[in-house]
């Protein structure tokens, strides 16, 4: 039994993380379909012991890996093997927590159930966007649970989604190498950026897949097979190319920096001009997700957490160094 558990931990990959709306808990989903809830406030407090770095509760959420999670102000939504399940944050710490509801978007064939790689909340419409293996973006209304739109356009599966707040547009990046912008009101594709066609950033030996996307209204960062590049959306021009050889799997804007993580141990901090400001090593050999806890209700738990190809979640209290690691 112990050997089995040790083997499980050795081969664990944490795909997704999400912070609770109160800011004090962190949920992490792994490739076995389990979700673990860690208490950030306990782990960050001055009397933290070894047990506070272990999860408060772990439960089997899905049959397949949990690829993506988002939080509304009361629910945790997790998705992986073709279904979206919702859990109440208030109940999640109790043993034997059951999901509130589960939904499956309408797929073309009922034979194969494609995985859901990315979830995105659109607060203005109170809806959830799912995207994954069937190359479409499905919109689901959170009040009624019905699937309202299906956006077509990608020719291969979709890796990541990002929301552009000012004009309610969604960006999606996928295996076909294109970043597509969709207008939610007209349900049409407004812009397509084929990253691999631009010579400055394409790296044919890595492929053309887009692994990560982040947007800041007028600007967008995307990376993966092609190099990590900063794009100006209105003119669709690549402005800065970040000199990072390893493909990046997660990128996000933070204050005046861009944080990225991917193959390789480190969390990289870039300035918009393309300079590498810092590279902070973590404890996993490769990182798949970053999460910044900026919930206003818990300013003392304002940390950056990084997780990837191991059973550990690194916690950075100050962007300069790794404070400690939580572990499954």
């Amino acid at each position, binding site marked *: 039994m112990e050997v089995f558990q040790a083997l499980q931990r050795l081969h664990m990959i944490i795909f997704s993380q999400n912070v609770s709306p109160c800011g004090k808990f962190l949920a992490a989903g792994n490739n076995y379909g389990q979700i673990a809830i860690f208490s950030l406030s306990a782990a960050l407090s001055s009397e933290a012991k070894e047990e506070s770095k272990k999860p408060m509760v772990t439960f089997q959420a899905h049959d397949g890996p949990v690829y993506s999670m988002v939080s509304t102000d009361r629910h945790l939504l997790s998705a992986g093997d073709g279904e979206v399940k919702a859990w109440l944050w208030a109940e999640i710490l109790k043993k034997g927590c059951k999901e509130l509801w589960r939904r499956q978007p309408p797929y073309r064939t009922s034979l194969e159930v494609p995985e859901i790689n990315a979830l995105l909340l659109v607060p203005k419409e109170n809806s959830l966007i799912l995207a994954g293996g069937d190359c479409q973006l499905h919109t689901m209304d959170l009040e009624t649970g019905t699937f309202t739109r299906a956006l077509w356009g990608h020719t291969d599966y979709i890796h990541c989604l990002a929301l552009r707040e000012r004009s309610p547009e969604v960006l999606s990046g996928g295996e076909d190498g294109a970043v597509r912008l969709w207008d939610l009101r007209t349900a049409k594709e407004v812009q397509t950026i084929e990253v691999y066609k631009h010579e400055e950033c394409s790296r044919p030996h890595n492929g053309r897949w887009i692994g990560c996307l982040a947007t800041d209204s*007028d600007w967008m960062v995307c990376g993966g097979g092609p190099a990590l590049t900063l794009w100006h959306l209105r*003119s669709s021009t690549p402005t800065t190319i970040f000199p990072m050889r390893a493909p990046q799997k997660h990128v996000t804007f933070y*204050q005046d920096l861009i944080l990225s993580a991917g193959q390789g141990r480190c969390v990289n901090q870039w300035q*918009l001009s393309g300079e590498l400001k810092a590279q902070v090593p973590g404890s996993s050999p490769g990182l798949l997700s970053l999460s910044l806890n900026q919930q206003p209700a818990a300013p003392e738990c304002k940390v950056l957490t990084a997780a990837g190809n191991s059973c550990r979640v690194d916690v950075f209290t100050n962007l300069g160094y790794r404070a400690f690691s939580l572990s499954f």
Partner: protein
Amino acid sequence: MAAVTDDEVIRKRLLIDGNGAGDDRRINLLVKSFIKWCNSGSQEEGYSQYQRMLSTLSQCEFSMRKTLLVYDMNLREMENYEKIYKEIECSIAGAHEKIAECKKQILQAKRIRKNRQEYDALAKVIQRHPDRHETLKELEALGKELEHLSHIKESVEDKLELRRKQFHVLLSTIHELQQTLENGEKLSEVEEAQETSMETDPKP
């Protein structure tokens, strides 16, 4: 009651002067020497003893005054420390506020820096493209060339049309001439045929 006050008295006396050297001993000696002086007989000895007693008394008074002064000093030190403590608390609160202010300023500065970097990034891209005036001039020149060439094309086409029309006229007149010549031949043939038929006819 008496036992309690006795305990108190003993504790106080031990606290003040436990080891028996110093003021307590002096007061005991004074009392003893007073009793001795009362019992002494001769005048000079009594006088010298009296002097000695007065000096011990003055020593006791001196040490009492010293202790009173020290007590005063302690009280004032305490007040002073209280004042300093309050000042330090005020300055700590002030420092906290300044820290919060500075944090806000840092956020603002980071935003400004981000905007500047975005501007720089766009500016770099724009720099790579050629100047707008030059491009406009090139466009104008190209436009003029285009106009010029289209003029030439028009004139050439006009010439071609004219020549085509003239050829057409020429060819049509040739055709007409041909037609008339053919018609003329046919007419003369018909006339010949009529003449031969007229020659053969009048016989019968």
